[in-house]
């Protein structure tokens, strides 16, 4: 379902909105939101067959944000896509709003699954894909995980189940930014080689550049054409992408920028947006 804003603009606007949200709320997960932004923008801007006027259409494609803490990315993109007014983002993580810290399907239009407890979203996506397979529906299910999230045993339970049922209507991404709260994933709990692990679990695995729309697009097309089970797209990303002092820094996983840092970040993101519009 084509969206009329060019993807680079959508993602750049998304980064600006996400940074505003986290700064205003003085809490939220910016590092992983910025690494995942391009993937989420591509899905909502171009890939998902959805209708903003009928967000619960039973035949729609689904997206499950298994790394649920990156709501600044998801909510910004949902707002840009028209599921709710951009002004609502001002109440992110606020007691007077519905945009809670982690995705919540009951009150937020466009959210397909309540997530936030890591490992559970990918299982729910397996359930959605199973339901579609049973009823021979044509909808597809997409899920996004973090590389730190792969430490949850449940991810591997879900991976086995997706292979058992040959869920070729399921495409998952890992946002491989290499960092988690306590530091590099390689130190906290080594998870590489991720690709070999998923291949051993029966998945079709594709490597992609998580900040290159052409690379992601080609991976998604390949996933859609793969008919013998689920596909995992390993999207290599940069945590904090787009804000120079946040890039590759684990410390920005769940920390909100103060006023000074925010001014610098905002200037960088606005400059990036201006370059696109020039």
């Amino acid at each position, binding site marked *: 379902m084509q969206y009329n804003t060019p993807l680079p603009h959508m993602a750049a606007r998304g980064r600006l909105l996400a940074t505003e949200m986290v700064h205003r709320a003085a809490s939220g997960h910016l590092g992983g939101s910025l690494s995942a932004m391009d993937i989420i923008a591509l899905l909502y801007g171009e890939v998902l067959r959805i209708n903003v006027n009928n967000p619960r259409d*039973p035949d729609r494609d*689904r997206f*499950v944000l298994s790394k649920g803490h990156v709501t600044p990315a998801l909510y910004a993109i949902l707002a840009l896509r028209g599921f709710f007014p951009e002004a609502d983002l001002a109440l992110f993580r606020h007691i007077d709003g519905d945009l809670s810290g982690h995705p*919540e*399907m*009951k009150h937020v239009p466009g959210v*397909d*699954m*309540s997530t*936030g*407890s890591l*490992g*559970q*979203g990918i*299982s*729910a*996506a*397996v*359930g*959605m*894909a*199973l*339901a*579609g397979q*049973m009823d021979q529906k044509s909808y597809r299910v997409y899920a996004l995980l973090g590389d730190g999230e792969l430490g949850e*045993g*449940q991810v591997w*339970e*879900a991976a*086995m*189940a997706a292979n*058992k*049922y040959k869920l070729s209507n399921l495409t998952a991404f890992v946002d491989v930014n290499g960092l988690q709260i306590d530091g590099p994933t390689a130190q906290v709990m080594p998870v590489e080689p991720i690709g070999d692990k998923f291949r051993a679990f029966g998945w079709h695995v594709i490597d992609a550049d998580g900040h290159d729309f052409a690379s992601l697009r080609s991976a998604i097309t390949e996933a859609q054409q793969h008919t013998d089970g689920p596909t995992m797209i390993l999207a290599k990303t940069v945590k904090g992408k787009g804000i120079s002092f946040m890039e590759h820094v684990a410390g920005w996983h769940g920390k909100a920028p103060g006023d000074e840092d925010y001014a610098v970040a905002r200037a960088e993101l606005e400059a990036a947006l201006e370059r696109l519009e020039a």
Partner: protein
Amino acid sequence: MAEKIATRAAYGKAIAALGKTDPNIVVLDADLSKTTMTNTFAETFPERFFNMGIAECNMASVAAGLAACGKKPFMNTFAIFAAGRAWEQVRNSICYPGLNVKVVGSHGGLSVGEDGATHQCTEDFALMRAISGMTVLCPCDGHEMREAVAALANFDGPAYLRLGRLPVETVTDTIPGYKFEIGKGAVLRDGSDVTIVACGMNVQMALKAADILAEQGISALVIDMHTIKPLDEALLLEAAQKTGAVVTTEEHNVLGGLGGAVAEFLGEHYPVPVIRHGVMDEFGRSGAANAVLAAYGITPEGIVARTLAAVAAKR
């Protein structure tokens, strides 16, 4: 001779029968379908049965995903794994979004017997009851279980259903005026001196205890409280006002389950002596089911002793 059937067996038949009339019902199991008795459903509707292997946490969240796409999943395993191991998935994937998943915990309580403490779940009511929006059921016999399964199929929202391992005598089918409704307890025997509130197989024990008490001149009102949450507060209040003392009995820790629920309500709204009968904050152990129950005082005689204490505490 009354029918004698384990509630898990009655459940297995009921869910298989329901499969015929409701195409949206799907059943998940975690490699225990022969003992949770979902195997009849599995054989009849293989395309709607998902054996998720020994992975209960994944099963709970997969069930949530199925429900989010309009299916009516019943997920099955032993109570200790459904309510225990997968607790956080039941809370966050199922109950928080209010998804229509029925969490079915078989082999609840000490009557698991030989498998011992690791498999004897005496905490499931407490665990499930503490989750906002969760409905908690523990029917006492085959007849009530069939009624409960039918009611749950038409109940839109998360619910926990405990099944028992042992065959138990069917008692609710001969009670005049008995009608099953989620959230409404059933008075199985009228009385005036004390109320015994029971669930699961302790209902049959409570009826036997009431017979013994009658011989001692004590008239016990027996409530079959098959729904632990939401608790039938109106019925409880009426019974407490009428009898002035309450005993609860369950195959569960006395902390946090049926006894906890009853004590919480009456403590706030109509304080009368409430004596809890059940597992006294201990782990179970291996043995023949009836021997284990006897070792922990989960018997009609155990209920009688606690009921006498409640009557003595009346002012």
